[in-house]
């Protein structure tokens, strides 16, 4: 197993754990059911949420596996800055980074907006566990 694969697998488990244990998501996530892609340039993760819990995370899914509703795409450098404990200005959220940096929001953004509170919280959990790129 390569170091990169090992790092990705550990991150998948960490992301699952902090999401499922997060009091905020669990308090408000009854309807947080959707699927999204986190494209970190060097690796991609397809996250499937069901009622506030991580149902499955696919690492580097193939073309036929990619049935997600919306996607966040940015350079690995940007994702690394998202994952800092106190991110510098413009790397502190999906809107700041999409307005001012290279984050692109794609797909069915209505789904993102319908789940914005919980998704925003889950995104910020990256500050606890970092990113695998």
């Amino acid at each position, binding site marked *: 197993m390569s170091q990169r694969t090992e790092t990705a697998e550990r991150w998948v488990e960490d992301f699952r754990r902090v999401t499922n244990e997060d009091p905020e998501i669990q308090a408000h996530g009854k309807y947080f059911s959707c699927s999204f892609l986190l494209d970190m340039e060097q690796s991609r993760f397809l996250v499937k949420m069901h009622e506030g819990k991580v149902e499955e995370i696919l690492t580097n899914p193939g073309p036929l596996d990619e049935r997600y509703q919306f996607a966040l795409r940015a350079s690995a450098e940007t994702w690394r800055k998202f994952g800092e404990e*106190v*991110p510098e*200005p*413009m790397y*502190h*959220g*999906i*809107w*700041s980074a999409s*307005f*001012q940096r290279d984050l692109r929001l794609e797909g069915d953004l*209505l789904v993102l*907006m*319908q789940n*914005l*509170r919980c998704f*925003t919280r889950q995104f*910020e959990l990256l*500050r606890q566990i970092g990113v695998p790129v």
Partner: protein
Amino acid sequence: MAQFSPVTGRYVTIDVLGDECKVFFLENGEGQPLVCQHTAGCHNHQWRDLLEDEEITRNYRVIAYDLARHGKSDPPKNREWWKEEYRLTADYYTAFIVAFCDALELEDPIFMGSSFGGNVALQLALRHPDRFKAVIPVEAAEYSPGFFLDWWQHPQANAAQVCASGVWDLMAPQSPEKDRWATWFYYSQGSEAFRGDLYFYSVDHDLRGKLDQIDGEKCPVIMLTGDYDYLTTPEDSQRTADQIKGGEFIEMKGIGHFPMSENYPLFKRYLQQALQRIENRTGG
């Protein structure tokens, strides 16, 4: 013994271009009037800590109102407002503020507002330099496009949560969590007015090419912007201040677009700098 706040609330009815507006305002303190405008889609409770700050209110009469349609201020009483799409204009907004200050018979008030309140502070400096002692535009620029969006009222999304979480990362991550959540809570309450306010913020407010008409010597313009503001960045505010005769800009480090409600102790330090500069330039 009950713990009463020194802040008091009252209503005043004013005429705004023919609209009968019953306006709710909070106030505390004595001395130089300091009139405070909340951000778009919000209300005067954003200024809660300033209103109760004994050090400031010793010398300043802090007055924070709710714009019509916000907080405890109703829409116009004499008009069928529900038959029109709400779109705030610069003409209406500035008329509202002047009418409010006139109704309270305020002499030489300092006007301070954040976000769309900061942008209207620039409008006041342009249109009414004789009516205000100075203005403090917070998180403001001569032009701030991009936020007059249908997202805020999309019927298939929860508008309260979209408005509140959509502006969440306008705040700095290191601001106190309880204050960020209080700010989020305020935004969950104002979704119906938010989009219409942003018509002013992102469309009707456009002072490009007009900043040289603002006389910052007559009415000092002291701008404050946080470095976590992705809508109006410090560079935007610096560029704006540079084009105003006598305009000044202070960058606020480690804070975002709602400084007075997301981290008041930090904002206070910069506000005191701005107030000191106004005192120095106007003789107190």
